[in-house]
């Protein structure tokens, strides 16, 4: 019965996804989230908004203003910073749950604005931006007609370029976060997470430090959006739907909150597992091992959401520190 299933294909796909562009995007977004929640204790439920701002900032710089690619990346970072300021200035003085509500709402504002017909001349509505990739592809040293890599990890030149750039950015961000969190700045941020009143009593401007952390994590999230744009050669508003933020949360919690490496580990585990389950499910359905009266192929893709929702809830109850985290490093008692 199970012979009809192409196991080698499933395994190959699953291993491939562990290093593919999606894993890079999720890892970067989760690194940003780690700065927010893991180190500074900020409850950001709208990380996807930062990702969108980064992607649109970079894309619009090319399609609208014809900037050079490096300036475009800078504009993406500026977009994410502005978004952080808009969110942070009103809410960081308030209780943690206010930030949660505002971020989830603001991320949805970004998506609705980007796909609106009112801004069609700027953001191209629901179709999104598709004509920005040229200047980036021109920087690629890889031959687009050739395959690069080995084993299950082989990609065409253009895709390989995006993946290499993505992982380099991940490495740089990990280095940055690791060094920052050992620095005096990082110790203040962690102190604020543990006890804001105590940090304030010691003369630290908690509000200012939290705002800096929000901007830093937001820019890293913005990089996730730029890598996504580079890898998929498109920026579409409906990629940035609200549940995506909680996929990043799952990736972060899976690896372990407040650990430098954990978002990368979490992203790799997540994409390997999800790809495995989805491919297996699809093959079970196409081979009639699961009757179509119960589930058809389009519904197989919904399983992902069940797993994400359920594991997010279960991890939070039974193992909030994730696989590698330590419980002391968690800002669960933030007010």
């Amino acid at each position, binding site marked *: 019965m199970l012979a009809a299933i192409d196991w080698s294909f499933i395994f190959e796909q699953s291993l491939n996804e562990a290093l593919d562009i999606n894993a890079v995007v999720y890892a970067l977004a989760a690194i940003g989230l780690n700065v927010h929640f893991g180190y500074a204790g900020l409850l950001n439920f709208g990380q996807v908004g930062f990702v969108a701002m980064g992607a649109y900032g970079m894309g619009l710089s090319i399609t609208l203003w014809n900037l050079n690619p490096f300036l475009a990346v800078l504009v993406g970072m500026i977009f994410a910073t502005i978004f952080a300021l808009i969110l942070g200035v009103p809410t960081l003085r308030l209780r943690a749950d206010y930030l949660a*509500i505002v971020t989830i709402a603001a991320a949805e504002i970004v998506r609705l604005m980007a796909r609106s017909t009112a801004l069609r001349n700027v953001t191209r509505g629901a179709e999104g931006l598709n004509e920005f990739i040229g200047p980036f592809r021109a920087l690629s040293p890889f031959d687009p007609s050739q395959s690069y890599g080995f084993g299950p990890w082989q990609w065409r030149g253009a895709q390989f370029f995006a993946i290499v750039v993505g992982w380099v950015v991940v490495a740089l961000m990990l280095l940055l976060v690791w060094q920052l969190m050992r620095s005096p700045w990082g110790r203040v941020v962690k102190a604020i997470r543990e006890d804001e009143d105590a940090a304030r009593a010691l003369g630290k401007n908690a509000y200012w430090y939290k705002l800096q952390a929000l901007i830093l994590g937001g820019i890293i999230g913005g990089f996730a959006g730029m890598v996504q744009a580079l890898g998929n050669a498109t920026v579409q508003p409906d990629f940035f739907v609200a549940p995506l933020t909680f996929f990043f949360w799952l990736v972060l919690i899976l690896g372990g909150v407040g650990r430098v490496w954990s978002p990368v580990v979490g992203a790799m585990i997540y994409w390997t597992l999800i790809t495995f389950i989805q491919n297996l499910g699809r093959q079970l359905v196409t081979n009639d091992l699961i009757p179509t009266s119960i589930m058809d192929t389009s519904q197989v893709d919904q399983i992902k959401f069940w797993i994400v929702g359920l594991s997010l809830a279960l991890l939070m109850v039974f193992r909030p520190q994730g696989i590698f985290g330590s419980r002391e490093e968690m800002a669960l008692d933030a007010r």
Partner: protein
Amino acid sequence: MWRITSLLLLAALFLLPALGALGQSAEGVRARLTYEDPESGTRTPAVGVAFTVTDLSGAAVGEGVTDIEGNVEIPVPGAGEYLLVIDVLTLPEGIGLLDEARGTAQVSVLQGRVGSAIFALTTGGETDVQRRVTVRRVSQLTVEGLKLGLFLGMAAIGLSLIFGTTGLVNFAHSEMIVFGMLVAYFFNFYGFAGVFGFMEGWPAPFGAGINLIPAALIAVLAGGMFGWALDRYLFGPLRRRGVSLIAAMVVTIGLSIFVRYIFLFLFGGSPRFFRDYTAQSGMQIGIIDITPKDLATAIISIAVLVAVGLFLGNTKLGKAMRAVSDNRDLAESSGIDVQRVISRVWVAGGALAALGGVFIGLSEQVSWNIGFRILLLIFAAVVLGGLGTAYGALVGALVVGVGIQVSTIYLPTELKNVGALVLLILVLVIRPQGILGRAERVG
């Protein structure tokens, strides 16, 4: 005797399709109206749009209204040329003709055929009719805003009370709303058989659909039970385990995503409509045009909300709810059974959310993912009114509802919810405790 009967039956069997074909062969004019819903991006039928058919001289020969699939078919007396005229005032709110000049289509009807016409609808640009600011239009939008505000208010009070008594921001409240909507839908169409397949073929309410009103009552009961079960089996145990509020908040999100996609699995992706009271034409009250269903649901909402207000203000349990919400430790030390009060709050929150869901489903559409959009509006409402205050939530909901609808005078319809969310952020800058909240340090 038996022979003759069976022969007749056999003849009837052969004749029936022929009769059916005869029935179809009458001449008529047909149109199908759909538009792209800016929220979900799916093609949605335009329901209840009135059409008139005239001959070329302009004399009316028939009229009709689109059904829940957006189809309209109007019989005409014979073959020839006809004009199909759309009544733009009956189009769903925010929907207009793509080309204002093409409100009339000429249709050629051949012998025994149904001629069809095409009307292109749009949600994006405002139409001339909508752009005009008149007293009539402003008051019409205000009434629609109040209606939306009442529906939001029912759900918002539950969210606010749960927050007040437990400190938990329940992101799964959206799924409690959609739960009510879907339970009512299933009972409206399938009865218990919608859930228990073996009952198929039993009499209503077991094997067949029932009227929407009893279905809504069942939905409210089910919503209360859903709320009770969530507290009893999930959030109560979490509180006892000492799981922090932030972790519990993430749990509500996980739950919300899980349940939402279960809904998608069971219900399917395309939005649908209840079986009863869907396509209604409006009636004129003064300068306001309102459908009977909207008037009825608005009155029921007001009655329910007044009842909730009286309950919170005058009954022992209601006072206990407010006491726990106000100061949990003080309430507990004065002998109030806090866990029991919290359980009742979840029941009330679930029931109110379910009723709100049924009404929203009736006034807009029944869909699996409408909850998230509503949840963001509810957040705007409760933050505006003051997080944790029941009356504040209601005031906030009314302001948000009216604000959203009236803002469509200046904003494109697809951005009306954005306005409410921007308001949410502005309130936090200017007055973080909300309209009715007490000025205290919330950070």
